[in-house]
């Protein structure tokens, strides 16, 4: 093989150096890009880890809180159909507050498995004055942990406070127990609250 001349050696060295520099740039650039991506992902993962640990730490407190709230929720007999009962209660509250219910539709009862609770909802439309609405809501609160407004819509078409119309979604959450275990003194908080409330 013919030996390389000094010029050829120089050219080869320069070519090799350029190739190595190029290769280095490619590798370093790619790895830096990867590192930046990994750092971003790691930051997100750490945030997620922190969120999860906070959640897990909060579990005993949540369970305690849930137990406390569950204790305050009403209990109903297992077999009782509550749709009409709830509708009757709402209608009663509306009557007492002066709010006119123009429609009332119950949603099917659902079972909240993780809480071992039942939930029923009522969708209603209403009309009345602002005073009637406040009275209605006040009476609802006075009932205790029986029902809670999930959504409320209010419209004031002609700008007067006594011609309001609107809709609402009312949630009832409760537990069901066998009829034999029902203690009338404790298990009818709605009824007892209703008698004490003043519209």
């Amino acid at each position, binding site marked *: 093989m013919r030996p390389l001349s000094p010029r050829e050696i120089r050219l080869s060295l320069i070519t090799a150096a350029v190739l*190595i520099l190029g290769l*280095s740039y490619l*590798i*370093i650039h790619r*790895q*830096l890009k*990867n*590192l930046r991506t*990994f*750092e971003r*992902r*790691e930051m997100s*993962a*750490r*945030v*997620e*880890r*922190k*969120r*999860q640990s*906070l*959640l*897990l730490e*909060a*579990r005993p407190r*949540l*369970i305690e*809180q*849930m137990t406390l*709230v*569950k204790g*305050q*929720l009403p209990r109903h007999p297992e077999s009782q159909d509550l749709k009409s009962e709830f509708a009757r209660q709402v209608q009663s509250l509306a009557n007492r507050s002066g709010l006119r219910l123009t429609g009332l539709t119950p949603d099917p009862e659902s079972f*909240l498995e*993780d*809480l071992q609770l039942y939930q029923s909802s009522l969708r209603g439309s209403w009309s009345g004055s602002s005073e009637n*609405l*406040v009275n209605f*809501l*006040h009476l*609802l*609160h006075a009932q*205790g*942990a*029986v*029902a*809670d*407004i*999930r*959504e*409320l*819509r*209010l*419209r*004031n*078409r002609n*700008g007067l406070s006594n011609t309001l119309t*609107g809709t*609402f979604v009312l949630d009832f*959450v409760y537990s069901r127990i066998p009829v034999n275990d029902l203690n009338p003194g404790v298990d009818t908080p709605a009824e007892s609250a209703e008698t004490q409330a003043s519209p």
Partner: protein
Amino acid sequence: MADPVLTTLILTPKGLEMTQLPLGTDDGPVTLRGEGDPTAALKTLLSRHPADGPCSSALSANDVMLMVLNLPATEPSDIDGMVRLQAEEISPFPAERTCVAWELLRQQKQHSRVLMGLCARKPLDQLHDFFQSAALVPDRVDVDVLGWLSLIQDAGHLPEDTDQLLLIIQEEQADMVAWQQGAPCLIRSLGKAAGLSADSLAEELSMVMLSLDANFNPAGQILQVWHSEDPPGWLNRPPSGWQCVLHSLSQLPPLSQGLARRAREAQRIDLSPSAWQEEKIRRKTRRKQLRAGIGTAALWMLLMLGFLGGSLLKQSSLRRLERENQAAAGEAAQVEALSQRVRSLAQFTDRSSSALETLLILAAAAPGSGTLVIDDYRYDKNQGLIFSGSSGSDTQPFYQFLENLSAGDLLRVKSYDLKESRNTYNFQVEAVWNWIDENRGKEES
């Protein structure tokens, strides 16, 4: 790092002799011999005792023409010029195939006694090829008889103030040296030792005595004979008028030690061609370049591996974290759902964010009676409020209303829109529960 060692290697009829002389320390020389094939012996010796430092060798006096010159100069450059001129005149070899070297024997006021060595390139090339087999290039090439003279002188057999005629008979060659006042004045190679006889010695002696000046006067016509093995029989019949005093070379240190000591001193005969030194420098440069190249490549590899390794480590730690997150995700989702349920349930007992409470908050935030009219109001237990209305012809009540609304702990105004229509400002406001932001803030921190 160990001190460098001067290595002297010479070819002997039996094989190879090597002496290593530590430089920079007072340690004595170490001499080793290898018998048989010199190339194999060289490799074996060097594998055990590497030549880490300068390297020297020697040619046989048979291959070198040695002449003592009295030159009318004292400057080394002048002496060098004269020696080269002399060499050109007497050399039987072409100039480009001749190697010349010299060493100063004695210097007086106006002139210098110089020993000149001259040889053809052929024996040097053979020596070079031999060393090349072990990837070595000798730094110096001396002449063997000068090594013996150095050893004989060091042993005290050559006093400064006497003239002596020496016959050095080695295994394969014989040399005659006329020693005058502490330095040789003639060195003559007699060729193969085996071809020497009493008659030929007598002839050589008469020729030597004729060529020496009248001042040379060996006391009592004594011929000092140094022999390597048993003295030849013809020495029992010395030339007439001469008396032989026999000495054995074996009583002296090995020849390579004498040559090593000479190699350590500057200004000794060095017959190595300049091309060898250039080659050595070239090799050294190439070795340095190779080392630098390997070092750079190793550094580059380390750097690249560092980047790749760093990236892989980061990736591995990220994967571990993501795996942990994934493992805990189900449980966390359950707790999150539980948290939402609890919040939803809690509103059955805690009415602070109920529809009634928000109506009261809006009423309290309104700056004055009748300045703001809310036409449309939407309450969502899980999100917040969206409401719209009008504020008459003045925008100030609206801004005051927003300010009052945001001052509370429950709601935060997320967005609003204010437009003028028929001299009345209509607005729409979206306000969200503060606890949504708090939860998000906790997650982000």
